[in-house]
């Protein structure tokens, strides 16, 4: 097997210890931190900085520092480690990492699952951990056989030499006593046994028999359940409440005012919910009492007429537009969106004098623990946060304020016993932290030969980062929020004069990242406007893009692949249309072709063909699942979803007013992966941005009408 040095300094970096089971535990030791112990030891000695534990029972447990919310990290990250380890895959399992700086995201410096970054950020970390473990097991075997380690080989959970064989379980105790290797060698790609293969997920069985434990399933001895009455309007404050009806209801133990509202604590969730609904709370409605999204969007449209903060300026857009043979302008609008995870928000807290334990499906462990600690009045190291399975995350469970965790700690303070707070679906939807609404005005022109010569984008919407503890770090001194303009600030098309401007709106609606973040709206606006330019130039929308992407080989690669697999030039039956879109986000390139029909103003998406180039990939089965998941997520938003406010109150409450695509509406969908040796990119989010524009452009092909506002309503198409 050929190997190459990883180039990472191993000295003072790798440490080994004997795990409680007597097996081998290996991980990364960072300078300044004491020696490591098993991630499964008791809290009192809990100092994990390990990624793998090998038991004398041959079990290989990979400790995963990213949260499993459907995207497959409990499989893809163990694959990386197990491949370098030459583990027996049937013996490999996963375990969520506890909260510890040693499990921080290598690029973000916090424990977080987001930005479609788990695999690319864990690539070296997990492979090196596996390779180091393997080297020590080999050294242990070589010692026992009294042979040179270089003459040993490894295969499927065992070290081999000639006819002799020792399994990793047998070697674990001996290997644990050896010094860590100073250098680890990583496999050449041609020697991968797992990486690059469509390995089945490790977490499927428990999701088919009810055994997978989500946050909502956590049960502690003596635990009570709570439901909270929260302000009906953002920024409203509780003036008083009347619990005379609720107090005496069955199972109710306590009703208490907390900073977030009024907590009803009962034996069961259902009792708490019924009593909560019987509360009469008098709210000081505050400044948002007359908030109206219709008026807000009208304000945004006005602002879009004026110059904003400069984000990008290539050439001279004004002159280019003035000299254009043909010009066009369009106003794209997208609404607030709810993440709408299938599992509504919930959090369980056991608060004791001097310690606190939290169970929740967190995407943001470092921050959640710190905020829980602050609320509990404890130092962070006195708070243990247990990451459960997440019934969907989509960014909502990475809240910069840890709203649902902080609130649960507040409730626990009132309860005095372990307590689980469950949000109803209606609570979850009304709870804020939405994808911000945006108006995106674009103007552009083509010359006499139909080449695009100028483009100006002006975006109006709320900043996700402004006002959060991360503003300074994420904004990096910029006068605009990069998350508002990502996906248009890097407009890939060869257009000589490009201006991008941003208006930051101040609105009292809490907003947050939602799957694909800024790309979820810029992908729509940009790819629809490119289509409009193509039509203006009298050119085929696929070939128009092709011509403008000659300097962007990876955009071109997915664009061509999607078009070819979709049979771009094959005629469709009358009444149907085909649309295309291409977008770069989170390190990956994506293109979709959608086929739609429109009948009686109803849009039906029949087929979606997705092409994805995420560089080197780990598990093509997961790549396919995530790409299609993203496409359906994007299509749901495009076809159905909108949050609106009237008199400060959210008008949507549940799935019937904020629908999700269902199986009978789901198109035939296929994914084609570009083989690539490029740096690994993300996969959780890149499938989202192309869905809406591909559908909207297909509607134009079918009907000649342009959709410029989401969700799509044919009555508004122009």
């Amino acid at each position, binding site marked *: 097997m050929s190997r190459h040095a990883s180039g990472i300094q191993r000295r003072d970096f790798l440490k080994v210890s004997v795990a409680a089971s007597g097996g081998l535990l290996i991980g990364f030791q960072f300078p300044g931190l004491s020696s490591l112990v098993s991630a499964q030891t008791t809290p009192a000695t809990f100092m994990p900085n390990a990624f793998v534990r090998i038991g004398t029972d041959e079990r290989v447990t990979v400790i995963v520092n990213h949260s499993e919310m459907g995207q497959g990290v409990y499989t893809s990250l163990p694959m990386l480690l197990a491949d370098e380890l030459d583990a027996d895959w049937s013996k490999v399992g996963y375990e969520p990492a506890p909260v510890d700086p040693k499990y921080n995201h290598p690029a973000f410096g916090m424990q977080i699952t987001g930005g479609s970054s788990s695999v690319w950020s864990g690539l070296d970390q997990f492979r090196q951990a596996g390779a180091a473990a393997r080297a020590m097991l080999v050294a242990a075997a070589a010692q026992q056989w009294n042979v040179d380690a270089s003459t040993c080989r490894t295969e499927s959970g065992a070290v081999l030499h000639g006819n002799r064989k020792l399994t990793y379980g047998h070697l674990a105790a001996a290997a644990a006593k050896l010094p860590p290797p100073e250098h680890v060698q990583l496999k050449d790609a041609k020697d991968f046994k797992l990486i690059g293969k469509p390995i089945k997920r490790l977490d499927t069985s428990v999701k088919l028999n*009810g055994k997978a434990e989500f946050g909502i399933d956590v049960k502690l001895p003596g635990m009570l*359940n709570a439901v909270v009455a929260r302000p009906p309007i953002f920024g409203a404050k509780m003036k008083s409440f009347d619990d005379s009806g609720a107090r005496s209801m069955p199972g109710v133990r306590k009703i208490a005012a907390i900073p977030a509202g009024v907590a009803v604590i009962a034996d069961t969730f*259902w009792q708490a919910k019924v009593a909560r609904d019987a509360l009469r709370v008098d709210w000081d409605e505050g400044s948002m009492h007359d908030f109206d999204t219709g008026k807000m969007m009208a304000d945004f449209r006005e602002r879009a007429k004026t110059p904003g903060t400069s984000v990008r300026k290539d050439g001279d857009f004004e002159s280019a537009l003035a000299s254009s043979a043909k010009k066009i302008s369009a106003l794209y609008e997208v609404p607030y969106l709810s993440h709408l995870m299938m599992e509504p928000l919930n959090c369980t807290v056991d608060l004791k004098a001097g310690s606190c334990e939290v169970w929740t499906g967190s995407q943001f462990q470092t921050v959640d623990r710190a905020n829980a600690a602050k609320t509990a009045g404890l130092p962070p190291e006195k708070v243990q946060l247990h990451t459960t399975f997440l019934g969907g995350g989509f960014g909502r469970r990475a809240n910069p304020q840890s709203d649902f965790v902080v609130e649960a700690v507040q409730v626990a303070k009132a309860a005095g016993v372990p307590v689980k707070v469950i949000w109803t679906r209606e609570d979850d939807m009304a709870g804020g932290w939405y994808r911000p609404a945006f108006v995106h005005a674009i103007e552009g022109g083509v010359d006499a030969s139909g080449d695009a010569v100028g483009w100006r984008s002006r975006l109006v919407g709320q900043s996700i980062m402004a006002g959060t503890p991360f503003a300074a770090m994420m904004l990096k001194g910029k006068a605009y929020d990069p998350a508002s303009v990502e996906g248009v600030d890097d407009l890939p098309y060869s257009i000589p004069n490009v201006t991008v401007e941003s208006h930051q709106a101040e609105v009292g609606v809490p907003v947050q990242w939602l799957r694909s973040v800024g790309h979820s709206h810029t992908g729509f606006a940009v790819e629809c406007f490119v289509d409009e330019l193509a039509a203006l130039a009298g050119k085929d929308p696929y070939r128009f893009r092709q011509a403008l992407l000659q300097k962007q080989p990876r955009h071109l690669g997915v664009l061509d692949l999607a078009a070819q697999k979709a049979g771009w030039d094959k005629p469709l039956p009358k009444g149907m249309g085909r649309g295309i879109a291409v977008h770069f986000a989170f390190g990956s390139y994506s293109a979709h072709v959608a086929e739609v029909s429109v009948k009686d103003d109803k849009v039906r998406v029949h087929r979606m063909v997705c092409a994805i180039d995420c560089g080197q990939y780990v598990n093509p*089965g997961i790549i396919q699942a995530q790409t*299609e998941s993203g496409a359906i997520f994007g299509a749901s938003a495009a076809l159905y979803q909108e949050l609106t406010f009237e008199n400060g109150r959210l008008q949507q409450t*549940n799935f019937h007013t904020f629908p999700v695509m269902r199986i009978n509406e789901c198109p035939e969908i296929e994914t084609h992966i570009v083989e690539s040796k490029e740096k690994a990119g993300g996969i959780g989010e890149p499938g989202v941005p192309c869905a809406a524009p591909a559908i909207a452009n297909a509607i134009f092909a079918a009907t000649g009408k342009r959709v410029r506002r989401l969700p799509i309503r044919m009555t508004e198409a122009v």
Partner: protein
Amino acid sequence: MIDFSVNGKRIDLDVDPSTPLLWVIREQLGLTGTKYGCGMAQCGACTVHINGEAVRSCVAPVSRASGKSVTTIEGLSPDLSNPLQRAWLEEDVPQCGYCQSGQLMSAAVLLRAKPQPTDDEIDEAMTGNICRCGTYSRIRRAIHRAAEMAAKGGAQ
């Protein structure tokens, strides 16, 4: 007192008869495989069987189960041997997994009524079950695969 059976086990419970079956199953009986998603029969995550029929347990008062036999995901098979579970494994269906108990319970009723369902019949039977991760293509394939397995003599 409400008297019914869950996964073959006799249950006597002193519970408010208007309590949704979902919360009795989850909180009183500790069977947490059945999920809460919407509370108004919109998403299907809470699907269980009452006397073999698919029921959205979030809106079914527990009194509806009185004297009847309830099956939850934990009772679909003791060992993942149901053809649907096997097919779900082979097609690697779940992502986050939260809706999958409900999907399986709806699919089980479908296959009993239509052992070889068409795509339209799958649509009709499964439309009430939302998957926010969008695993629908794999669900469809897995149902067809389970139907084949059952036809080839797999125990149903």
